[in-house]
């Protein structure tokens, strides 16, 4: 169940781009069509396609089609173990950033 480092690297690389992070934020609210994402970020469709491809390859999002129209692509976040592990690491890093900042303030106040 554990994620390979290469997968984590790919996930981190996918999230290094601010527009792709924004896509992940939007998909965290609910699944959305590619066109809707492109409009929300004010990006041309081909650019959004490239971002979605990167996110798909990272395992962060999955693509599906609504039953009524096979041409429409719906994107949603994937609840894979890797994604959960990544979130754990993010939270742990955030926690330690805050703790070390508090530690630094404490030490330097007493110095």
């Amino acid at each position, binding site marked *: *169940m554990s994620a390979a480092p290469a997968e984590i690297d790919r996930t981190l690389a996918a999230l290094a781009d601010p527009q792709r992070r924004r896509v992940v934020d939007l998909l965290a609210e609910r699944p959305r069509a590619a066109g809707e994402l492109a409009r929300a970020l004010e990006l041309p469709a081909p650019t959004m396609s490239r971002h979605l491809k990167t996110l798909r390859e990272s395992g962060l999002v999955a693509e599906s089609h609504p039953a009524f129209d096979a041409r429409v692509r719906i994107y949603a976040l994937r609840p894979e173990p890797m994604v959960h592990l990544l979130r754990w690491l993010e939270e742990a890093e955030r926690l330690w950033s805050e703790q070390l900042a508090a530690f630094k303030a*404490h030490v330097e106040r007493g110095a």
Partner: protein
Amino acid sequence: MTSKVYIALRVKAAPARAFEAFTAEIGQWWRPNPLFQTTPRDPGLLAFEPGAGGRLIETLKNGKVFEIGRIRAWEPPERLVFSYRQANFPLDLHTEVEVRFEAVGEETRVSVEHRGFDRVPADSVARHRFPDEVLLMRLADWWRAHLASLKEVA
């Protein structure tokens, strides 16, 4: 294949003082974090029992003591290693924290490596205690802070 977290910064103090502040005074600087709380109860006060084999404990407001971990290496003023386990961790998840204190001129570079997170099972209790959407929405913030801290260290 250990997944780890690594954070470092510099403090304006000598290593011996930084080590002392990190251990003996942890109750004064540790900030309870609602998303990463050690127990489901109100946060308490953290304290190290100094020396190898000593515990890192949290004394809760109701007086109960929760053991977060045990000291595996106690090498003042350079190095400290302790096991770390929160109440909401799955039973088979044991993480470890290594803290290093390196003199850089008159200052000390303090680094924290928290490792062992590759054993978080997808269906663990821990997962269900975490509100996924909240975490996802924090991704952007986290990356900004992360990149800023890397810059600071570099």
